């Protein structure tokens, strides 16, 4: 996994609540058996005017000029500013893969759906939860300064937007894994003996589960 330490980048505002994972990556792309190549289809229904699919060449499709990520400089954005309940719905990790493949490194919102939130950490995409009044003011800043860059520092847990610095919370363990780009399967397997011991005890106590 790509580590996340400090990142500065253009912020794209996506001003709608409850952006679901079906919107982030529509189902026809879930037929892929790979982890990559989802970027051109991130927000597919909003990004293009015609329907796409795994066997359709996206370069031949009609772009929706009104959609924020089709506008400069947001087509180069690496930070997404979003509203409440971002990433709700389906557990598809393809939504995170689509965002990282597009180039996003972080999403800032007043709240995230739990599964999306967890999936993000497995792929080096940092979900940052800030108070909704703060997010509101960040939308104001982005509107006033098109193309503004925010700097996100994970070590100090801060988002710097112009003159203002906002602190965010993050679990210590998630922070440690993100900072170091750690594969948690490897970490968990360091405790294989403990898992085996637990399992043996469980087998004795609740044999019908085995």
């Amino acid at each position, binding site marked *: 996994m790509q580590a996340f330490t400090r990142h500065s980048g253009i912020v794209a505002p996506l*001003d*709608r*609540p*409850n952006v*679901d994972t*079906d*919107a982030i990556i*529509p*189902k*026809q792309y*879930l*037929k*892929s*058996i*790979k*982890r990559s190549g989802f970027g051109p289809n991130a927000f597919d*229904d909003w990004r293009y005017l015609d*329907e796409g699919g*795994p*066997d359709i060449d996206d370069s031949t499709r009609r772009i929706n000029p009104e959609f924020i990520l089709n506008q400069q400089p947001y087509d180069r954005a690496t930070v997404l500013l979003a*509203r*409440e*309940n971002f990433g*709700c*719905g*389906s*557990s*598809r*990790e*393809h939504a*995170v893969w689509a965002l990282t493949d597009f180039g996003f490194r972080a999403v800032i919102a007043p*709240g*995230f*759906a*739990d*599964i999306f939130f*967890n*999936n993000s950490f*497995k*792929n080096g995409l940092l979900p940052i939860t800030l108070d909704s009044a703060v997010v509101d003011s960040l939308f104001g800043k982005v509107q006033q300064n098109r193309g503004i860059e925010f700097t996100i520092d994970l070590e100090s847990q801060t988002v710097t937007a112009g003159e203002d610095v906002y602190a965010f919370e993050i*679990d*210590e*363990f*998630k922070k440690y894994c993100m900072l170091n780009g750690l594969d*948690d*399967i490897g970490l*968990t*397997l360091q*405790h*294989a003996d*403990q*898992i085996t011991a*637990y*399992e043996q005890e*469980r087998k004795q106590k*609740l*044999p*019908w*589960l*085995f």
Partner: protein
Amino acid sequence: MTARTLYDKLWDDHVVRTEDDGTALLYIDRHLVHEVTSPQAFEGLRIAGRKPWRTDSVLAVPDHNVPTTDRSAGIEDPVARLQVKTLDNNCSEFGLTEFDMSDIRQGIVHVIGPEQGATLPGMTVVCGDSHTSTHGAFGALAFGIGTSEVEHVLATQCLLQKKSKNMLVSVDGHVNEGITAKDIVLAIIGEIGTAGGTGFAIEFGGDAIRALSMEGRMTVCNMAIEAGARAGMVGVDATTIDYVNNRPYAPQGEMRDRAIENWQQLHSDSDAVFDKVVHIDAASIRPQVTWGTSPEMVVAIDAGVPDPDTVKDRVKADGMRKALAYMGLEAGMPINRIAVDKVFIGSCTNSRIEDLRAAAKVAQGRKVANNIKLAMVVPGSGLVKQQAEKEGLDKVFLEAGFEWREPGCSMCLAMNADRLEPGERCASTSNRNFEGRQGQGGRTHLVSPAMAAAAAVAGHFVDVNDLMSHN
């Protein structure tokens, strides 16, 4: 010992170890696998040279991509065919049990787990699918995970988790005639919102929940995720134990007696404290219909489409306007005047035998209205289909003008050929009315199976009680 909630008990029972910040390594008893969210996880195992930790904990089934029409020629779409084939190959390579497309037991993963007794009280159940919350109906801790977590569970039998907070949603009293589990859960989501349960595990309780069959409880827990909660659950009682009894994967004989003794502890202690408690008056619940593009955008059948101009919160009002534009509706329009084009009865929310019986009762002796282009019934599994046919439900549907299909996820998410065309409006018993969910530009209204069947015969939404009393 301090009083504990059901969630506390299930959690405590599965913790292998805890990190300093409270992140726990949680043991997983049952891992359900389907074709869409697993290929990259198996590929990850292969790349790292790892093997599944416990093969007997896994039950795999293709469901999202499978055709619901004649399967004898296989899957026409080459991309979907490869994905299903990849699941078959991965299961045989790693020695995992799979009910493949030709197996009578094949069906939607959240239907077959309980049907086989592969979901048992007291288990942790995970699947790379958000509707895994369904299995919480059995007094289990069940939640959806992403593909990286699927790989993590395959490799370690564990997951890294932070404990959620406890919420009790108590549906007090009794529902009126014609009100189903789907109406109850849509009313709950309307009340607490789609982010209302975020960060919580929800226990559903109260007399109206206790009175539900296991099928009904599964419908309610299935949509806990639509209220933002990864896990929904119901305490174990006689209804639970009766359902589990004699299922193929459930314990038998002396082992069964021991298990039942253990399962009877799986309910919240009477003095357990919840972080949040919500009360819903069951008698106030009317048949529900969603009008927008989020499951919280829901009203009663006799209401009108809400007006965003009356909503103070700007972000919320804008969201409502976008939803109305997408849905092609106007504020104030009576719900029971909205005409539909297609009707879908199926999905992991509502494709069990009880759902099909409820829909068939409405369809019996009636005809699908002329303006309906397609009304389809997709049973949740091969065994549900078999049972329905034994009861003659297939004939009721076919005579009324419905199509009777093979089991799968079908038009709930339209990964296979079953889908809406742009602008088409659907009365659907599924769980998500998101933009494009059932096909790009498609407009979804979520309802119960009885309400979907009623919409099919009336050609527009109608209170199923009115329809039934007129004949």
